[in-house]
């Protein structure tokens, strides 16, 4: 009986040892894009502006804004991993802006008589994936970070607060 007791304890320990997992989405995020400081980052910025016109139409703009939001989110995540908190935060803000742009285009598409059911599903899955990434990111970034630029007064970056705000933006679409 004692042997079985050990087994019972082992199962309990293993049970608590497992890491908590968030609701995961099958939505696939892109690879990290060229990052600030790279020559290709400048090309990417130009391409981003050109693509804004290439993706015309309400569904095109839906695709464009979601794509850019995805890219900036992955950029933010990568930069946070390298402890580039200021750049990471800027990327996250851009991702937020693109994400909030999506819904108006979806509404426009609906007004134009286009079927948006599939797009709504994609947006929901995208939001879910973004939240999943943001929550994981929050685990390894400090709550605040003091950014000390040369010859200027320091700035406090509220990383957790910003991440929570980004999650809140995406939560509206769930």
């Amino acid at each position, binding site marked *: 009986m004692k042997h079985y007791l050990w087994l019972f304890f082992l199962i309990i320990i293993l049970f608590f040892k497992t890491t908590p997992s968030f609701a995961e989405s099958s939505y696939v995020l892109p690879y990290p894009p060229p990052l600030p400081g790279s020559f290709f980052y400048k090309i990417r910025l130009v391409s981003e502006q050109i693509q804004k016109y290439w*993706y015309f*139409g309400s569904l*095109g703009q839906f695709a464009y804004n979601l794509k850019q939001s995805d890219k900036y989110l992955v950029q933010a995540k990568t930069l946070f991993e390298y402890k580039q908190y200021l750049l990471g935060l800027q990327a996250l803000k851009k991702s937020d802006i693109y994400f909030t742009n999506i819904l108006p285009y979806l509404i426009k598409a609906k007004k*134009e008589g286009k*079927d948006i059911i599939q797009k709504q599903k994609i947006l929901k899955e995208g939001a879910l994936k973004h939240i999943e990434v943001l929550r994981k990111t929050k685990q390894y970034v400090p709550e605040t970070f003091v950014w000390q630029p040369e010859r200027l007064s320091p700035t406090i970056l509220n990383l957790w607060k910003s991440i929570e705000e980004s999650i809140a933006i995406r939560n509206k679409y769930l």
Partner: protein
Amino acid sequence: MKKILFIAYTFFLVILTLFSYAFVDPNLSYLEGLYSEFAFKYRQQTTFLYVLIIFLFFIFYFLFLWLLKKRHLNSKDVIWLICVTVILLLFSYPAMLSYDIFNYIATAKVLFFYHENPYIIMPIEFTKDLLLSFTHAANKIALYGPVWIILSVVPYCMGFGQFLLILLNLKLFTVLFYVGTTYLVWKISKNIFSVVLFSLNPLIIIEILVSGHNDIVMIFFALLSFFLLMKKRIIVAFFFLFLAILIKYATLFLIPVFFYTVWKLFKKQKVDWEKIYIASSLSMFVIFLLSPLREEIYPWYAIWFLPFVSLVHKSKMLLYIALAFSFGLLLRYVPFMLFGTHFGLTPFLKTAVTFIPVFFVLIYIFFKDKLWLKIFSR
């Protein structure tokens, strides 16, 4: 005799037009009244009739060429033959062998009706659209170059949203380019035999006048480019070649020939146009044979080289191979027509029927020109 032949040919075209309606798609609600399910239910009979039509078509074609050679046909007769072919087949059902014409409409609709970029948004995303029930490549973004998409505004907008009118307009549109290409073949060759070789070729007729493939638009601009090059209008010629490339990218293979000719013109050297058109034919042959790397050899890809070959018909080997391909490629539809599937034996049979006529022609050339003697006497 000639009169009887012409009447028989007219009657044959009427039969072909009627036969094309046996293939009306069951989901094509716009032609609901004409749906007979014949081609889908009686596959053996349909295949037999189709093969018979192809054989008869080639018999007519070779008869016209023979009569022309014997000077029993004149240019007026040829114009009459082209006119009657164009007028009758304009009313044939275009999706008899290929559904591409529906793709053209779907792509144009994405841009001009939904105001979305067809290179980003697929027709399938407009789930309520009736076109989806019979368009076969609705799950793909635009397959054609931007110039084609822009040009398609003409037939699309002239249709005022009426599907059948748009369909007819698209056919009319390709007919205009067919007539234009025929005219260019005449202007370049000044030879009525070349005109008949191109314009009355059964593959050209079926793929352009029945199926309405846009390859003719690309070839028209490519040929126009070479025609202008002959007139030494290099910049305008390049502009039209550029347009051709932006319709379908196959004409990219004409660039080396084009620039070689330009170089010759700059050097003020004599241009051997016969050689230029042979090189153009071969270039288009190469891209035609490379097409399986992308998808497969579709019968209408022969439109890429046939106009050039018709300009250099004195090169018998090239001509015989081109004609053998014309015949074999039209038989390529047979396995699917018979079995109703793209799997199993169909892919093998498609390849076999495409290349067997070419193989026989090569054997014929080998023995006729005593190539074997030349080879083995070395």
